[in-house]
């Protein structure tokens, strides 16, 4: 009988409404009330430092290559000690889609995502972050990794003194 099924449907529908009326509200009263995201939440990007305080970023261009929206640009340069670093490093957050591919591509753990999602600005140019805005004084999520200790070339330590290296060979020696 259609009449009975109609009445059933109406009662079931209002039942759902009544159920929700009696539930606790899920809305968070932002900005008075703020949610704390998980550490793995993907929001504002930072550049971190290694445990010795040096800049981790070696400006290898992998993040800008991985970036699907082309919001990262940089220029690599060389310090006197041979360390490669970013002379300038720019992320355009008005374009960033927070996909996290840059952090995944980074071979030195320099670029990391933080849970800081509140980056609205009045002027869109203020969303173009330069290196001084991005660089933090800390290691971020991994506080032990230093790329140059594993790189296999001498930059932060004498040649051959890295963690997985033997001392330089003497090519003029006949000893094994």
């Amino acid at each position, binding site marked *: 009988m259609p009449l009975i099924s109609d009445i059933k449907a109406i009662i079931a529908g209002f039942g759902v409404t009544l159920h929700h009326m009696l539930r606790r509200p899920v809305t968070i009263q932002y900005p008075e009330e703020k949610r704390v995201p998980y550490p793995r939440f993907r929001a504002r990007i930072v550049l971190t430092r290694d445990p010795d305080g040096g800049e981790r970023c070696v400006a290898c*261009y992998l993040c800008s290559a991985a970036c699907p929206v082309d919001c990262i640009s940089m*220029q690599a340069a060389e310090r006197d000690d041979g360390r*490669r670093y970013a002379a*300038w490093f720019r992320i355009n957050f008005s374009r960033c889609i927070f996909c996290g591919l840059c952090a995944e591509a980074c*071979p030195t753990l320099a670029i990391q995502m933080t849970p800081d999602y509140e980056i609205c600005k009045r002027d869109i140019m203020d969303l173009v972050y330069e290196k001084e805005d991005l660089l933090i004084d800390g290691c971020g999520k991994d506080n032990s990794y230093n790329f140059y200790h594993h790189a296999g070339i001498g*930059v932060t330590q004498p*040649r051959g003194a890295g963690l997985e290296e033997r001392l*330089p*060979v003497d090519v003029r020696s006949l000893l094994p």
Partner: protein
Amino acid sequence: MPKLIIDNIPVEVPEGTNVLEAARSIGIVIPHFCWHPALGRAGACRACAVKMLDGPVKGLQMSCMLPAQDGMVVSTTDAEAMAMRRSVIEWLMINHPHDCPVCDEGGECQLQDFTIAGGHGIRRYDGRKRTYNNQYLGEFIAHEMNRCIQCYRCVRFYQEYAGGTDFGVMGRAAMVYFGRQSDGPLESPFSGNLVDICPTGVFTDKTARFRARYWDYDMAPSICPHCSLGCNITPVARYRELLKVVARRNDRVNGWFICDRGRFPKANVNALDRPRQPLVDGKATSWDEALDALRERLNGFLELNGTQSLAIIGSPRMSMEGNTMAARLHKLLDTGKICYFSDSVHAGQTLEAVASLTPDNAASQEDVRQADLVAIVGSDLLAEAPMMALAVRQAWRNGAPVYVVGEETSTLFEYVAVASLSDIPLAEAKHPVLICGTNHVGSDIIDTAARNKAKLSFILDGPNAFGCALLSQEYGATPLSEAVASGKIKGLISFESDLTLELPAGIRVLAAADCRKTPLLSRAEIVLPSSAWVEMDGTFINNEGRAQRFKQVMEPGLPIKGLDPAGHPPRLHRNTPPGGEVLPTWRIIAKITERLGSEWIEDPLSDQWERLRELDAEGEGISVV
């Protein structure tokens, strides 16, 4: 012509081809490090293993060491061959450092590509890595020996192909070292090719150190503008700065290599004080105002002095497009003179040399490499055209005797010094080549070559000297020194010319267009900034009459590097980059002719040069002799 089957694809290759090349010819790339098309095989890296299923040899073989033979059945995907390749690459990677992020080769590294292609992904060996100390190899090449995989390509190129003696291989067993006896700049004028030829990052270009990655490069096929040989190159730019130059293969011309003179100088393009804005009497102005001023002054000048008093000057370093347009401007104004060369003796010799070349007797660099006798007359090849000296060395390595008349300082090949041309046994050779510097062109050389059916190669002065000589004939050009000596010339308009003579004070330089800051520009009333060769498309005709196209590599403008001392590029938006208002010279001339009432010219190559419009920049070029 052996016929063989590779991965079920039948293929026929010329005699002497190895299996690796045969596979490449049908698009199957077998990982390889020590084999190089120009250097041949060494069998040092063991990475190119294939399985021979049937035929004269069977089992696992190194494809680079095995000449293709009839009846061979090759599998590159056989499980045994793949396991071998994977293991070999894993061994190579045992000592290779973990420094790709800070290595300039990263992204254009053969070792990266073939490691992935070979199927090696995760390091299993947990022992320590071997290290070396690096050497200082000069201002141009950086050395990072830890990355070496001992393929011997560098030393085979440097010592065998290029005849260098100061770089070699030392040590033994697992301590093999590629370098010099002690620190110091590499002496060979071809040392830059180590950067191209190293399959990994042992040798990298120091002048472009840490500047960009392969996937960000602005690149296009181009032609070297530093001498008349027209070697094929690929310039690399990023952020409006010319970073480096890489050799581009053209088997007829330079083969796989270029000289250091073509590779390393970049200052002309990147110079901050290069002309970048039109100037009228030293004051910066817009293109419209500068061209209006030029029209006014030109009309005033012609009214006062008559059309015969004006000379239009082209240049052997300007593209064919610019030079033909200069001739059209000359025709439009009906001016007294068009000049392409400064010096009358030099111009006469260049014209004579160009006139003597025919499609049959013009020698390309490949003809020189294949020659069985080489005679050099009055040319110091290493100073004037280094790649020609390298080509002569290849002929000498193949057993051709080299005879030299006059001065030759090259140590690339052994030669017999003779007093005159008649002492050279040209008649005994089947494919002799006569190489001659421009200053020694004479009927005796041309006649001797014709008598003995020898091919001729002239070393000219400038990347488009050949084109200028053809245009000189076509338009009856006068050398500038002659025009000035006649006393009729009262003013001139110059396009990219390097004047070698002292210009009398009475001659007005109405306008000068150039991409370099030449002394003539400081005398010019109106300065018109033109594009460097990497900032436009164009055509050069090299010393053998081969027209070759170069394509635009980069947008003109001041390099981003150094624009803002605060440390990052400007945060302002604008449509044209600062300093980006330069135009190709042919376009400047088109704008001038338009101002003078002619129609706008869309394509500069007209009349007999129309056939160059379709020139393919990736091809071998078109002969115009």
